[in-house]
């Protein structure tokens, strides 16, 4: 039986689809019976998805103008 502690170390292999079939079954069996690890998996997925929504800083107007200049120069080449 997989322990909860082991599961927290295997979670990336699981989410990355980098597990043997047998380990995958063990992982799923554990998740199916352990609500704490279900919560952990839920939280981990939410954390990952949150990262995917992190906005980047907008470009400062002067930097933008300069890049558009660079583009015009490139066009003329």
């Amino acid at each position, binding site marked *: 039986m997989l322990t909860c502690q082991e599961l927290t170390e295997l979670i990336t292999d699981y989410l990355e689809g980098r597990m043997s079939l047998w380990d995958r079954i063990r992982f799923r069996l554990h998740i199916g019976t352990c609500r704490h690890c279900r919560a952990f998996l839920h*939280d981990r997925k939410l954390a990952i998805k949150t990262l995917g929504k992190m906005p980047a800083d907008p470009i400062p107007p002067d930097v933008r103008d300069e890049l558009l200049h660079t583009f015009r120069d490139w066009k003329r080449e």
Partner: protein
Amino acid sequence: MGRGDEIRGTNASLPGAGVRERELRSGPAAVEAGPADDRALIDRLLAGDEAAFAGIVDQYHGRLLRLARSFVKDQATAEEVVQEAWVGVLKGLRSFEGRSALKTWMFRILVNRAKTRGVREARSVPFSGLGDGDGPDEPAVDPARFRSDGMWASPPRRWEDDTPEAVLLREEARRRLEQAIEELPPRQRTVLVLRDIEGVSAEEVCNILEIAETNQRVMLHRARSTLHRALERYLEEDES
């Protein structure tokens, strides 16, 4: 407007938190621009369409800077690296073959510029080929939270927020995440930015960074675990 506009302004648009593993693996990139959109955009750029260039600059500049920051310490140098990358993009555009997505190609150019700059300034942190995650080999979860038989003693709580949007609406949560990302060891930070923030596939990240898949996965695991802990600490403070 054309379909090219769909790629603007979002680096991930998967619905809900009940995401399947397959979606996490393929990442937000899967719903971004396809090769056809890229081709249309490149044709516009090659034709000298300034609005098209302004479009990708608006869309990518901040993201390139975020990636550059994982290589070079100070903001000013990172900005220079991004400027150089834009020049590299323009120079390479005519020979772009579309073997990878335009986005991935631009990230590759940025990474190469950043590495060159890092070497020149002797400030780069080389990628180890030994499968090392660059940083201490920390457990994913504090061992004190488990009983001696490896079961939870202090179990995690299922977070009340159910969507990334709900999490990010909390200004402080976002600040904590940004801070935790900044504090990651540099190579973990690069991998996390590319994989989870930008949605580049594992294969392409290994390719861009010239590292082995297992090494990439170790770094991703450590980085994700660190951010998970940071978010958990904050949400538990906030909800209690």
